[in-house]
């Protein structure tokens, strides 16, 4: 019984397994089919390639392994002619994208870029993928239409953004969406029962006529004399009227027309014409006179004339006034549009200028650092000689002196050279050694300073209590021998370059020790707090202090307030540069003879970049 149950269960589970296997097979098959349908019907050209390498493993070409119909169509090639052949064999030159392709296949990181094929006059967006070294796939998407729109837009922007005093090349079409203006014009014409049209200042239509009457369209404008009259009228009527709309009776039919100017600033760019209306009080006897003058069929003329809308003079005046208000508003909009476009360009241009200046500044800075670096090394070289050979002289001198002062030395020489060998020469040696050593310290400082500018920050979370203990340890001997009391409270941690921050504290403590007030027991206090999301550290002493007028000079390179005390004027300049490099702030509070407080702030968060 049990055995049977087991068997049945096993069969059941096998069945299920079989079923799911079948399903997955079907799924794979459908997926495979779907992929190949996609490959055959997609708009983008797809090609699979194998790279070809030279003897030293350098990619030199690639073989076309598979392409889809879209690719054939785009590049006007036939699948059967190219598969298995190298790119250069098919196209006659090495693919300009070879480097990109080989990089993608080497790194596996997909890349996409835009490219223009002059031979096809087409732009493409190329996306390159690779899952295996030496193989890659490239997908070509035709983006010519988008690129052309971009170019047209660019041209429009150039017209809109030339200098403000040069408006002559700006066109009404650049400032407005003509379709939208057409809608307003059509609506206006149909609401008022008039005809309407917007023309440029030479009478050329910008919009399509709305509501034109057949008299004008089919009879007057089609006759040579009538058409000429119309164009003349259109220009004349559009060229006046700053204070209100202008009116004119047409030369070919006695219809009344009105117009309002559209301007940008003071520059007249278009006219909005309205009219083709017969005023109620018009003298109808003159009508046929017009027909004769423009040499058209009088009967036809009369028939169409009677269909022209008629209205009172007041009514037409009111319509023209409304048009004038609308046209003025459009002018204001036009000016705004133009000013906006120009403002945006000037902002962009300024940004570009700033960018260029910044780049130049960075380059100059790099140059300067390079000069400092090179000259620092070259300045050091002669010093090695001065020190080295002075020492050789000194050694020789010591031997000579010992000889002169020895038992065997001659009394007469001893007497004659006494001042020289006991005072002058030892003094000269002392000054030479002292000066070269100092010069070396200056150059080393300069080197350190320039090196700081050249190297990147190695920013990490710093355990400040550990760091400060280490710093104090290095001063242990000095602190003990000078009898200075150094205390520090628990310090907050921060992010920074540990070596450089160590240098900051070392220099500040070194200064506090150097510039102590001998009259009282020296005291140095190091503290730190978190304030406004920043870690602020302070090194405070009860030393000589710094007069306030020097507070903004002490961070300058080689600046020294007390020329008699030791130092090269580098320590604080280095501190400043390090804190600047961390995007932190550094400040001093000090009163002469009472002591100094140097404080600096650092980030408690990891900076996104240096």
């Amino acid at each position: 019984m049990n055995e049977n149950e087991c068997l049945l269960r096993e069969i059941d589970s096998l069945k299920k397994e079989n079923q799911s296997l079948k399903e997955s097979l079907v799924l794979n098959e459908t997926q495979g089919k779907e992929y190949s349908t996609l490959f055959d019907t997609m708009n983008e050209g797809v090609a699979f390639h194998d790279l070809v390498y030279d003897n030293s493993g350098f990619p030199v070409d690639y073989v076309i392994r598979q392409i889809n119909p879209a690719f054939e169509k785009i590049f006007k090639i036939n699948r059967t002619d190219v598969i298995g052949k190298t790119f250069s064999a098919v196209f006659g030159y090495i693919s300009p994208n070879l480097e990109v392709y080989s990089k993608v296949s080497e790194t596996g990181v997909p890349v996409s870029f835009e490219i223009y094929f002059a031979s096809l006059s087409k732009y493409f967006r190329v996306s390159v993928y690779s899952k295996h070294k030496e193989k890659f796939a490239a997908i070509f998407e035709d983006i010519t239409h988008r690129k052309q729109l971009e170019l047209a837009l660019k041209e429009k922007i150039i017209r809109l953004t030339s200098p403000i005093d040069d408006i002559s090349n700006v066109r009404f079409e650049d400032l407005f969406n003509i379709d939208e203006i057409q809608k307003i014009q059509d609506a206006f014409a149909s609401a008022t029962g008039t005809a309407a049209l917007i023309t440029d200042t030479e009478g050329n239509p910008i919009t399509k006529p709305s509501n034109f009457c057949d008299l004008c369209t089919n009879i007057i404008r089609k006759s040579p004399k009538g058409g000429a009259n119309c164009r003349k009228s259109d220009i004349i009527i559009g060229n006046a009227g700053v204070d209100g709309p202008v009116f004119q009776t047409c030369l070919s039919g006695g219809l009344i027309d009105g117009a309002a100017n559209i301007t940008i600033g003071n520059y007249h760019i278009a006219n909005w014409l309205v009219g083709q209306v017969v005023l109620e009080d018009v003298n109808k006897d003159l009508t046929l006179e017009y027909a004769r003058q423009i040499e058209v069929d009088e009967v036809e003329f009369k028939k169409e004339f009677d269909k022209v809308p008629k209205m009172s003079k007041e009514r037409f005046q009111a319509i023209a006034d409304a048009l004038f208000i609308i046209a003025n508003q459009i002018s204001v909009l036009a000016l705004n549009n133009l000013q906006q476009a120009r403002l945006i360009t000037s902002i962009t241009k300024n940004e570009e200028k700033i960018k260029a200046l910044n780049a130049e500044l960075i380059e100059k800075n790099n140059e300067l650092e390079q000069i400092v670096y090179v000259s620092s090394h070259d300045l050091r070289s002669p010093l090695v000689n001065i020190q080295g050979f002075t020492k050789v002289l000194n050694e020789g001198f010591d031997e000579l002196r010992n000889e002169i002062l020895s038992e065997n030395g001659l009394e007469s020489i001893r007497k004659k050279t006494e001042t020289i060998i006991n005072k002058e020469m030892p003094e000269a040696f002392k000054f030479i050694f002292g000066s070269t050593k100092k010069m070396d310290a200056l150059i080393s400082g300069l080197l350190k300073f320039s090196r700081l500018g050249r190297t990147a920050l190695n920013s990490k979370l710093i355990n400040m209590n550990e760091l400060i203990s280490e710093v104090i340890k290095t001063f242990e001997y000095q602190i003990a021998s000078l009898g200075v009391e150094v205390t520090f409270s628990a310090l907050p941690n921060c992010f920074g370059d540990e070596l450089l921050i160590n240098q900051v504290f070392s220099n500040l403590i070194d200064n506090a020790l150097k510039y102590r007030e001998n009259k009282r027991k020296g005291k140095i206090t190091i503290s730190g707090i978190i304030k406004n999301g920043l870690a602020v550290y302070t090194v405070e002493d009860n030393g000589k202090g710094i007069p306030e007028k020097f507070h903004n000079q002490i961070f300058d390179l080689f600046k020294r307030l007390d020329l008699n005390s030791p130092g090269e004027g580098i320590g604080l300049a280095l501190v400043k540069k390090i804190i600047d490099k961390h995007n932190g702030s550094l400040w001093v509070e000090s009163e002469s003879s009472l002591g100094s407080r140097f404080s600096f702030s650092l980030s408690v968060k990891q900076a996104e970049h240096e």
Partner: protein
Amino acid sequence: MNENVNILIAEDDEGHAALIIRNLRKAGLVNNIIHFHNGEETLDFLLKRGSGPHIANSESYLLLLDIRMPKVDGIEVLRVIKKEKELKKMPVFMVTTTDDPKEIENCHDLGCNSYISKPIEYEKFMNAIIQLGLFLLVIQIPEMQKHDG
């Protein structure tokens, strides 16, 4: 060190070269010392170019190499040496005014054996060279002809 080992000094500064030689002698080294004034002269010797003296296969050599030199600098000389099968086992000691950590690292990456910066202070400089001299006294230097092995 075998007294037969030749010490090559590539140093454009005559004074520095004189001080180095003086202190090597002071440290007790009696080896043959050859001084080159720039990188090109050094490479001519090592690569057996030009009409001047050339390296001999039967001899052993070590090189004290300055970095900042006219024509071909020390970094370039080091790069060439470490690329040449025949030369790459020759010990190279950088002796230079540069103490830039980056440059030191660069030289080590290129395969220099040691790096000595020339301190201004005479005692330190002398010490460094004497230390080098003492070091040279104890190390074994392969002969050129065995390099291929």
